[in-house]
């Protein structure tokens, strides 16, 4: 959970599924002030999901604002000019709905799941809440305690501590190297005025989008939004933003290196490695990177799992995830093993990489990866929340595309192209590597 901090601790939803090449078509329109809105009709859905997105993740924080993006996401639920603290939750939940929010490095989003008939009311409440937060000083002090508890809880999980250290080492001087939660000292220092300034600066029409999916029916979203606070947002004050967040928009330059860490209460060793991958805007390269990481570490027959877990039995698990980010994506590897096996694990990872350098993957292997990536995507499109999230996010970053588009991108990658363009990015010598052993 390094990359996104949820407002409410929650278990993952049961993952979903799908498969035919007929996708619903997103309907997109822009409000007069430029806010992008996208809706997707899903007839079979029992609910509607509303998802408000804003480019107000932790990387948009200035030096004195660390932790503020995430803290603000908590404070939003403390009410607006019209809604008392907790009133939003009570009203949404009394309508049979639920809500949550999450802050990432690049953006933040607030989402509501609601029975279709109650969607107009939920939309009003959500936009008022997010765009007119009250930031009451007493509530601010109390919520600060909650965020500090969230920080303490994450510090009690050795795995989270290890990942945070890896990011700090891999991304020095870049916001991706800082915890989204912030640090104790910054958090204690924050006040409502500073938060209000951050809100004014980031929650602007050019930084916001809205996604809606599910049993939308004949809901007149355009009409509903016409007189909403979203339409009332005035254009950004560019001068206020100048210079303040320059660091956040620097391209990520990953710092390679080899580091060790000893942690108490650790039962198994961890090898963590981070590599730099192309940024989110390069959709074609992201598709290639997805294929490569899947080919290497998804399923029993992937190269790393087969070699290190199934054949050599060196690891309990090995994962390689692609974290798609705006300033530059990160490939993150985690291997879990008996501490005595550390050297062999690392040597085998290098070996697997060298084999891929020497010869491209087989066509069959690539097809397997293509199908796994494609089905993972298709299965994810079944629920309203997944679709509202996906399209709202695309709208936020100006990357709206038909829902079939990610699948077409996968077809453009041949085994030789993977070898020549993607495999070199995973050079262990270019990685930031952290070996974590029990203290």
């Amino acid at each position, binding site marked *: 959970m390094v990359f996104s901090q949820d407002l409410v601790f929650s278990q993952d939803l049961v993952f979903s599924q799908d498969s*035919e090449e007929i996708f619903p078509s997103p309907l997109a329109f822009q409000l007069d002030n430029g806010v992008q809105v996208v809706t997707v009709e899903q007839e079979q859905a*029992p609910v509607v999901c509303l998802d408000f997105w804003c480019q107000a993740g932790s990387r948009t924080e200035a030096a004195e604002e660390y932790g503020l993006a995430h803290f603000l996401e908590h404070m939003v639920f403390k009410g607006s000019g019209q809604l008392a603290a907790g009133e939003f939750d009570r009203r949404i939940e009394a309508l049979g709905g639920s809500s949550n929010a999450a802050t990432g490095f690049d953006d933040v989003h607030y989402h509501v799941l609601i029975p279709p008939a109650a969607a107009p009311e939920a939309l009003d409440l959500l936009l008022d809440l997010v765009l007119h937060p009250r930031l009451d000083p007493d509530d601010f002090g109390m919520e600060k305690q909650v965020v500090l508890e969230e920080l303490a809880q994450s510090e009690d999980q050795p795995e989270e501590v290890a990942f945070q250290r890896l990011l700090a080492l891999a991304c020095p001087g870049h916001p991706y190297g800082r915890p989204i939660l912030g640090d104790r000292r910054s958090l204690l220092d924050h006040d409502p005025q500073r938060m209000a300034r951050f809100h004014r600066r980031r929650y602007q029409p050019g930084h916001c989008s809205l996604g809606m999916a599910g049993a939308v029916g004949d809901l007149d979203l355009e009409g509903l939004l016409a007189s909403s606070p979203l339409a009332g947002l005035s254009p950004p004050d560019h001068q206020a933003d100048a210079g303040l967040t320059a660091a956040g928009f620097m391209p990520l330059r990953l710092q390679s290196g080899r580091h060790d860490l000893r942690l108490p209460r650790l039962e198994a060793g961890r090898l963590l490695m981070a590599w730099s991958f192309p940024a989110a805007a390069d959709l074609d390269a992201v598709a290639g990177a997805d294929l490569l990481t899947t080919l290497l570490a998804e399923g029993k027959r992937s190269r790393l799992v087969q070699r290190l877990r199934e054949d050599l039995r060196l690891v309990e698990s090995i994962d390689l995830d692609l974290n798609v980010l705006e300033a530059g994506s990160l490939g993150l590897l985690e291997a879990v093993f008996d501490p005595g096996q550390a050297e062999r694990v690392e040597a085998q990872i290098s070996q697997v990489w060298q084999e891929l350098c020497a010869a491209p993957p087989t066509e069959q292997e690539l097809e397997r990866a293509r199908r796994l990536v494609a089905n993972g995507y298709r299965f994810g499109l079944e629920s309203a929340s997944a679709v509202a999230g996906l399209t709202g996010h695309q709208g936020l970053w100006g990357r709206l595309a038909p829902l079939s588009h990610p699948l077409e991108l996968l077809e453009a990658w041949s085994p030789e192209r993977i070898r020549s363009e993607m495999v070199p990015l995973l050079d262990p010598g270019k990685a930031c590597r952290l070996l974590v052993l029990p203290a």
Partner: protein
Amino acid sequence: MSALLHPPLPTPETFTLQGGCPVWVLRRSGPAIVSAKLWIRGGSGADPRGQRGRAQLLAGLLSRGCGDLSGEAMADLVEGLGDELRCEATEDGLLISLKCASADSAALLPLLHAMVLNPWLASDQISLERQLNLQALLRQREDPFQQAHDLLRHQLFGEGPYGHDPLGVEDELAALERPQLLEAAGRLGAEGAVLVITGQPPPQLPALLEPPAGPLWPTAPPLAAAGPGGRSIAALVSTELDTEQLVLMLGAATVCLADPRSVALRLLQCHLGVGMSSRLFVVLREEQGLAYDVGVHLPARRGAAPFVLHLSSSADRATEATTQLLEEWQRLLDQPLTTEEWQLALAKFRGLVATGRQTCGQIADRQALVLGHGLPWSYPDQASQQAEALDPEALWQAARSLLARPSLSLCGPAAALAAAERAWAAHPLGSSASALLS
């Protein structure tokens, strides 16, 4: 304030395989996918003493070779199509889950029969899977929540069927060998099984699920029967860890899903722990800033389900956190919900049913569990009707009959444990319980 009642689930098609396994099929429009869940009674709760961890080990091995296919060949088939096949043990059953594109389902559905009737249980795969489970068991100890949870589970269920993690008990898992697994595999389905398929499955389902020629998998529809019980000895249990926070879990062993009072407990869970308007969230988190993560754990069980309030709070606030958590439990025993609280809990209950029916996988999962407990297909909708009829007085009565004597489990640094123990001893719920420090 009134929430909308969700429409009931449609009536499914049903048939029975020749071997006896009932099959329930719910066709849905939307994406062309299939979710199949085969629920087989007898999970970790059925692990014999001395062999705890057997059900989970067997579950992991079912996808490591069956029928004509080695484990690698199975993985090649399933992963090669980009689909997913998983098998895991819960306390009450073994669950095989297949998630695939409709176009792939005719190739994959036959695996289910081969997995339960003819698993290879190859020795090298047993040693690998056993090693992985032992490592996972060890690694769980890194998590303070897991430690508090393990302690409470042992307090509530002792050495009984629900007393251990499905992964097992280290020594016993390490000693499991092929003969015990063969025996367990031979008993798969003896206590009943059910298959639920949702989405857009292919025609000719019976032939795909059971080869026309060849041996049958003998099983029967799961019957409603009493599941494992719990203990009602209230006590404090704790373990010391050098952490920032103190983890608190306050819980009692209650009743099975089939017990009418389980609906009352679910409503109490909605009241206390579901959503950001829930009582624990508002009082402990938003009004007092005592925690980030606070909630109620209430799994659906065939036997005595644990009802657990959980909270983690900074070690230096141990006294306050413990006292407040005990007060919230006491409040359930001392007074009925207000009308407003009760209506909100009902609205959440309805909301959960609707949002729990978004995907084929969610529906298949829920229905397989319900049928696996010997309850009817319509049970979730019946429970919704029952919930509407439960007034605050009825909920209060259920709380007093089921939650009178909770146990408290703690995990954290020594000073916080000591403070929490004093708070427990000073509270009526604690002073009436016997102290049992581990």
